[in-house]
């Protein structure tokens, strides 16, 4: 029973952490971020399974996390009002070639980072961008101005 509770507590904490940290931290994976992710995974595993090395324990922990993932996704799908809380909302970063400074600050994003993302989309200048939107998965989508 305790392993189910531990897995649920860790899931809830990680979910909250990921929602609160800001989405850019999660989508821009530098080499250090990947190492950090592996380290966090290892730390979390110890907290969930502790001294339980059994297959039953592993199955229970994984099943609990899988069920909670489905529950969150089902709740987000069924309850529209909870969707912004559970999944987040898009944020407008650029409008008609002008950056929305307040929103960049909220997400701790620099103009250079947005420009870099734009270049990855073969957009040379933000002046050519009609809309740049930080999506809920942390990626930036660009809509170019009509020629």
């Amino acid at each position, binding site marked *: 029973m305790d392993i189910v509770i531990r897995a649920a507590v860790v899931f809830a904490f990680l979910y909250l952490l990921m929602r609160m940290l800001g989405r850019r931290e999660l989508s821009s994976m530098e080499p250090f971020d990947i190492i950090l992710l592996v380290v966090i995974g290892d730390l979390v595993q110890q907290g969930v399974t502790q001294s339980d090395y059994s297959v039953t324990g592993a199955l229970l922990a994984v099943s609990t996390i899988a069920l909670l993932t489905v529950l969150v996704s089902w709740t987000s799908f069924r309850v529209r009002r909870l969707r*912004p809380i559970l999944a987040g*909302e898009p944020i407008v970063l650029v409008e008609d070639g002008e950056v929305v400074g307040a929103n960049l600050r909220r997400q701790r994003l620099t103009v250079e980072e947005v420009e870099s993302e734009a270049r990855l989309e073969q957009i040379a200048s933000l002046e050519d961008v009609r809309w740049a939107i930080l999506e809920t998965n942390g990626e930036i989508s660009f809509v170019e101005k009509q020629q």
Partner: protein
Amino acid sequence: MSDLPQGIDLQRHRDFEGREFGQGLRHLFLVLLLAFVVAALLNAFGARPSTSEAGAAAATLKVTAPERVRGGLLYQARIVIHARQPIGAPTLVLDKGWIEETTLNTLEPEPAETTSDRGRLKIRYPPLEPGRSLTVYIALQANPNDIGSHDQGLALYDADEEIASVDRTQVNFP
């Protein structure tokens, strides 16, 4: 026709109208995270050892062990008996909070006799002369399932006569 992308509401997604609560919540969460880590640095969740002491005419008893531990943690308790008068049968009586749901790895030096009395562990050592000290080291490990507060009192007896006692409580975190 507006060229606004579908699903985008400028008031909400550009101007953050109605989203102030969420922003406040995020800041609060970060403050709580910081408080959590600072509390850990200040020993709120263990396992910095503390010392409790009791004295009597015949002897002093000193216990050094963490009062807060986390599940699975290996830690040590050090018990020092300093005899002021001869103690024929120095006996330490440990409350069951010391051993219940806790793995006792080693107890050094080896006692002359170990018994249990109503869940309390009694360990007896050879006689102690005045001026001599006996240091007992206990290596323990908190079982992860054991959560909450436990009485971890400790008493020093000379055979059946109590000399000194220390009241302690240990809190086990999950």
